Every structure is written in C-alpha cells, then in structure tokens.
C-alpha cells in the first residue's frame, strides 16, 4: 500500500530528477518557439514555466490512473500508481499515449501569446531550454525546503542570463513568482508581469476583431481572481476583440475551482469537480473560455461527455483555430 507521503515523494522526486512533476520529453518545453525564431538574450523574457506544455501529459497520466481505478481495488491501484510514477517503461506509456494534435493545440496557444506580444511591439526574448518549471507543486505539497531549493535554481538561471523582467502566461506561475519567490529567495528582484496585463494596457491594441459574432461563457481561474487580482484584464481584451462574454453566477472573485490542483493525487475527485463546474457553465453557453492551463487540462477530460467545448483565451485572441 502506498501512502500519501510516498505518493508526494514520488511526484516531487520527479521534479528533482527531471525538473518537471511528470517526466516529459524536454524538447516539448521549447519546440513550439522554434518556428518563430524568438531571440534568446534579452532583459525581458517570456517565461512559460512549462505548465501549458504539461497539459497533454497530465491528461495522459490521469487517464491512465482512471483506467486503473475502473479495473482494480483500492489496494492494487495505489501500488500500481507507485509503479506508474517510478517505472521508466510506464513513463513511456504515458508519453506515447499523448496524441500529436493535443501537443499541437498547446503549441498553437503558446505561439498565439508570443505573436500577440510581437504584433504589439513588445520587445522580449525567450528562454528555450532554460524555461524551467516554477516548482509550484512542491509549495502546494508543503515541501518548504525543496520548494526553496527549486526556486533558487530558477532564480540562478535568470541571473545567469541577465534577466530583469519575466512575462508570465498562467495564473499559477504568476502567483508563484510574484508572491512566493520574494518570500523564499533572498533579494528576488525580478519584475514579474503577466501577458494579459501587458496586452490590456496597450491603447492601440492590434488584435483580430470578431465583429461580436462569438459568444462565450468565461471561467475565471482562482489564482488570477482571488490571488492576483487579474479580473478585468481578460474581459477588456475579449471585448476589444469583439467577443461577447457571458458571466456565470460564480464569476470573478467568487469563481468555482475546476478541480485541477488535485488531479494527480485524486483524479476521480478532480474529474467530478470539473463535471460539476461544467454543468453549471453549460447553462449559460456550451462555448467556454479558460485562462489557465490547469483548467484547460482538467476540463478537457470531461468536456466531450458534457457536450461543451473549451477554448483558451490566448488562441481566441490570437485569431487562430484550434
């Protein structure tokens, strides 16, 4: 029988050995940026923290864990879970189950963000293989020392590359760098700005206009609204793009969590929470906008079953299809 402590240990030792909570092929972190030829060394850099890139792999892992749940008793599931995380062959199984189009969907979102910034004359570089994971899961699991060590490692890379400002693209990484790094790192002096904040502050924004032909219900992520006060920025951008927004009953700082934060330990519970939230959103529209890769991952698992479609804000603003 595996214990919570062991399970936590398995996930976190992955972070220590590979840098990421799930073992993934390292090139998927920066492969999306290669066609764009983003410059390397700049004082201001785009920092993805790899969360978007992890989405297809999280989904694959969770699907695998759920298939074990269907078949087995608790005891054997937990044992197998331990093996899933530790055995290289099973890692490969997870990686190989990821469909090409899922990875491409994520790449498109990342490219949309990069292009929106470029088209609006924001000068920045990209970190490529130095685009490290922020370590947020170590913090969530209460592993203080390991989180501090990981944060130090990320900060050292920033320093080595002469980074002065990072542009973050998701709520968890934004929160981690803005609120947590200053508490855990001596003299953390890197400026952290979110891409939605940058874009929404541009007066003459260059953005595709949909002519009010699209209507979406918005799902706010907890960490933007309750922890980072990023509430009006996405709304402003969507309105500028001529997209009609429907506000659900639980929106803004009263939003309802997608269930994602616990998906790697309690996949069924995370899935049931996603279903509950999507059922609520579906009453407003079957077209749903998400702003966070964790919401995107957890909702995507059950969206088909509930007959809704999930769209990330960046791909919509970027004007591309998915």
């Amino acid at each position, binding site marked *: 029988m595996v214990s919570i402590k062991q399970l936590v240990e398995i996930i976190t030792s992955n972070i220590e050995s590979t840098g990421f909570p799930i073992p993934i092929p390292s090139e998927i972190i920066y492969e999306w940026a290669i066609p764009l030829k983003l410059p390397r060394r700049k004082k201001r850099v785009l920092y993805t923290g790899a969360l978007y890139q992890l989405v297809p792999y999280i989904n694959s892992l969770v699907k695998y864990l759920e298939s074990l749940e269907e078949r087995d008793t608790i005891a054997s599931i*937990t044992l197998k879970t331990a093996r899933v995380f530790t055995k290289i062959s099973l890692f490969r199984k997870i990686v190989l189950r990821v469909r090409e189009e899922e990875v491409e969907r994520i790449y498109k979102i990342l490219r949309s963000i990069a292009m929106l910034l470029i088209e609006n004359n924001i000068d920045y570089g990209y970190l490529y293989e130095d685009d490290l994971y922020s370590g947020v899961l170590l913090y969530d699991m209460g592993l203080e020392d390991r989180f501090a060590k990981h944060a130090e490692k990320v900060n050292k890379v920033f320093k080595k590359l002469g980074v002065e400002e990072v542009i973050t693209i998701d709520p968890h990484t934004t929160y981690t760098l803005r609120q947590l790094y200053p508490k855990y790192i001596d003299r953390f002096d890197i400026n952290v700005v979110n891409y939605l904040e940058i874009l929404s502050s541009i007066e003459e924004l260059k953005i595709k206009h949909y002519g009010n032909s699209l209507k979406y219900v918005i799902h706010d992520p907890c960490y933007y609204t309750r922890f980072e006060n990023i509430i009006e920025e996405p709304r402003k951008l969507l309105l500028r793009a001529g997209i009609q927004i429907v506000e659900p009953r639980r929106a803004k700082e*009263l939003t309802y*969590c997608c269930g994602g934060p616990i998906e790697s330990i309690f996949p069924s519970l995370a899935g049931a929470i996603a279903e509950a939230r999507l059922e609520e959103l579906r009453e407003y529209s079957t077209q749903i906008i998400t702003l966070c890769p964790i919401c995107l991952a957890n909702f995507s698992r059950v969206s088909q079953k509930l007959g809704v479609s999930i769209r990330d804000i960046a791909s919509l603003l970027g004007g591309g299809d998915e």
Partner: protein
Amino acid sequence: MNSKADSSNLVYMLSREAGKCLYCGFCEAVCPTLPLGLHRGYGPRGRVALVLEALRGYKLSNEVISSLYSCLGCGACRVKCPVSIDVGGLVRGFKVLYSIGFVKGAPKSDQVVVRIRRRKYGIYKAIS
C-alpha cells in the same frame, strides 16, 4: 523548516489562525470538494477543526489525512469567511508539518483513501 523552532512557530501561527474560527459555516456553500466528500473533512469548516485536532496532538486517520490533502487551496472559502480565515493556507501548513513528521497520523494511516459521493446515483466510490 526542519528546525524545531521553525515548526513550533508554524504551529503557533496555525493555531492562532484556526482559533479564530467561529464555526459559522458560511464558507461551506462555496467549497467544491464538500458536496462530493463523505464527511465534513472535505469542507473548510471541518478542515479547520481537523487541523486544530492535529495541532493539539491527536493522531488523524488515513481518511481524515486524505480529506485534508484533497483541499484545492482555491481560496473560495476565504472570500465568504467573516474573519477571513485562509483555510487553503491552513491546510498547506498542516502538510508542511505532516511531511516533516511533526504531526502524525494514526497507526496504519498511510494509505490514500478518498471517498467521494456520486451525486447522480447516490452511491459511493473509493478511489486512490
């Protein structure tokens, strides 16, 4: 965080935060895990009470520990709380103490057991 002084300080801070709870239950309606959980350890008010028990030295069962680990840290409860208790932060503090062995589970408490309510059919399913 390994030093005893650090841990005692954390225990003090968590006890103070949890001690503010009025047990009014205003937080419960907004918690995403509570409607699916089998007991109040899946909701903020229950989590505050359980963390306090752990800080007082009670050994928690595997089921209780799992219910604490199922907290999303989403912060919805804090918005509704009249004394702004950060239950997500409180639970994270518990995890810090649990992971370094400062608070302990009961014997045989080391398996992952989450029991959720299947809303539509009214049956329960145990998952890992």
